[in-house]
């Protein structure tokens, strides 16, 4: 694989930054849509790390893992958006902090 030659460390750094950003979003956002988006970001950070590692060692496993994560993310979004609809219907808002009635 010639041409674009980015060191692995840089990619992993980007991946971990993405992960941290997603996590931060998860922690500070209250809107459930943004929480879901942050989750996507975190998943993609992990996927990026897999792809980079697969490219580094010339293995296909990384890309397989990426496909897996992609499908998991799709499933997750399907369930997540269903929940979003329920939350919106029940609480008339998308603020997650409102949905704390069970203190669980």
């Amino acid at each position, binding site marked *: 694989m010639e041409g674009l030659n980015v060191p692995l460390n840089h990619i992993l750094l980007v991946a971990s930054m993405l992960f941290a950003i997603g*996590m931060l979003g*998860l*922690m*500070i*956002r*209250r809107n459930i849509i943004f929480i879901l988006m942050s989750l996507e970001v975190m998943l993609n950070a992990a996927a990026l790390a897999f792809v980079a590692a697969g490219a580094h060692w010339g293995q296909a496993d990384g890309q397989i893992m990426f496909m897996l994560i992609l499908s998991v993310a799709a499933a997750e979004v399907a369930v997540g958006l269903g929940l979003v609809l329920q939350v919106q219907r029940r609480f008339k808002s998308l603020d*997650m*902090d409102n*949905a*704390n*009635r*069970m*203190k*669980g």
Partner: protein
Amino acid sequence: MRDMIWLIPLLPMLSSISLMIFSGRLPKTLVAFMGAGSVALSALLTLLFAVNFLNNPEPVQLTLWTWIEVGSFNPGVAFYLDGLTLVMMSIITGVGFLIHLFSTEFMQDDDSYARYFAYLNMFVAAMLILVMADNLLLLYLGWEGVGVCSYLLVGFWYQSSDNGKAARKAFIVTRIGDTAMALGLFLLFSELGTLNIQAMGEVARTTWQVGDTMPLIACLLLLAGAAGKSAQLPLQTWLPDAMAGPTPVSALIHAATMVTAGVYLIARTHDLFLLAPTAMMTVAILGLATSLMAAFTALTQFDIKRILAYSTISQIGYMFLALGVGAWGAGIFHLMTHAFFKALLFLGSGAIIHCLHHEHDIFKMGGLRTILPVVFWSFIIGSAALAALPLSSGFFSKDQILLSAYLMPGVGPWLWFGGLVGALLTAIYSFRLVFVVFFGSVKTKPDNSPGLRMAIPLTVLCALAVVGGYFTIPVAEVFPPLGDHHPAFWVEAVSIAVPIVGVAIAYAVFLGGQLKVDGLKNATSGLRQFWFSHWGMDWLYDRVFVRPYYGLANLLSSEPLDRLYELVVSASQKLNQYLSDTQTGRMRSYVGSMIFGLIFVLALSLGVL
């Protein structure tokens, strides 16, 4: 006849139970007939039995049924009647009947007439069971029964809290003795394997040697029980307070019968006491000490019933002295004469109190000689017997005791001398009572005079107190014979003279005025105060037992040990609160804490921290 003896305790018990059931719904006349009548029937049956027994002095053993059967432990509800039992039964039913008769008038105006007779009958039944029992367990049943009745009757006028206190004191103090006695019974059963009194004596004689430790311990435990019931040192403090009950009760329970239960117990178990000379010595010394202490106290009292109460303690002390020196017969003889003259004195004082608007203070009485002649003669005869003036009944019995004490080897003369001092004091305080109450000027006018139902018992008891000394009690078979020694003539002469001197002193001080004792009185006011409080025993017990006990109870009522466990509870509750506060239901904070935890663990595992 001999199979019918179970009727004797049954009749008063039936009467008592029916009075309890129908209490308050029966007319007073019927109550009086049931109460006094049942005891009269018992007395009659006892008389029949006595005639039968004296013709054929063979002890009667009658087993009604087996009470408990556990292994080798099978005490029966069984009676054993010999001369000693007969004497006790005659006193209980005879004197008991006279007191019941007296009560029918004395309590006439009381609202709880039926309750009174129910208790009184129950007492007679329990006391009969006590003396008729052939084993110590049944005896103990009667023993506790009389204790309960005593409690109920001391606190009979329960509206006043002082009476309740006196009743509780009587019950608790005697309980201390009862507990010791129960321990004694356990010990005797585990050592001898039987509680049957006759069998026990024989087994004990073969198992134990004279002077062994085991009989000594058993006898001391029995002695503690006897001391509690019979108001002897150191458990005598309840008796003066027990005077809170109606006066006939004091006469029946706290003078004539119940308090002699201890004397009976020791006499009944004399086989054991003979194996423990130290215990017998203890009995004699305790008796003498109690007798002297109570005599000094009686000298300073001014409540007519308390004087008689202390004189009772003192006289029972004499009985213990007699038992202690082995003069069993003399002790029982004094028990009988004492029952006559002390019941007489108490009923006499009851008559005075009844006629004088419940006045108890002898210095507020006076000049009653001509106004209440029956009572006056009762007191003259009763006090003469109490002081043991020659030819009265008390003279014969007390003389026997003193002479037997003198013959005791070793300390005998000292016991005799102590007894003489007691006799002198007895003569002084009993005639002080007579002179102050019946002579001099009239201070309180009686508002009525005793009726027939009071006068008859007094007259009969007067007769008994005079001739009682000539009775021969059939106990020679029961007790081991005494040696036929006679002390020197001067000993007998002094024993006879001392009470007369005492009466003369009382006359000179309280009536004739030949002896002026004001100076002496003032000089010894502290000492008299000390005697008045019965040697400060109540004060001492209050400080040593009652108050520390109350203090401890107070301390424990706040349950200090629970503090520790409450600490555990409150700590876990606090912790629970802190932890449940973290459960906010906010996902963001969960995520935050998860991540911090993760970072922490990561840092730890990477060796950064």
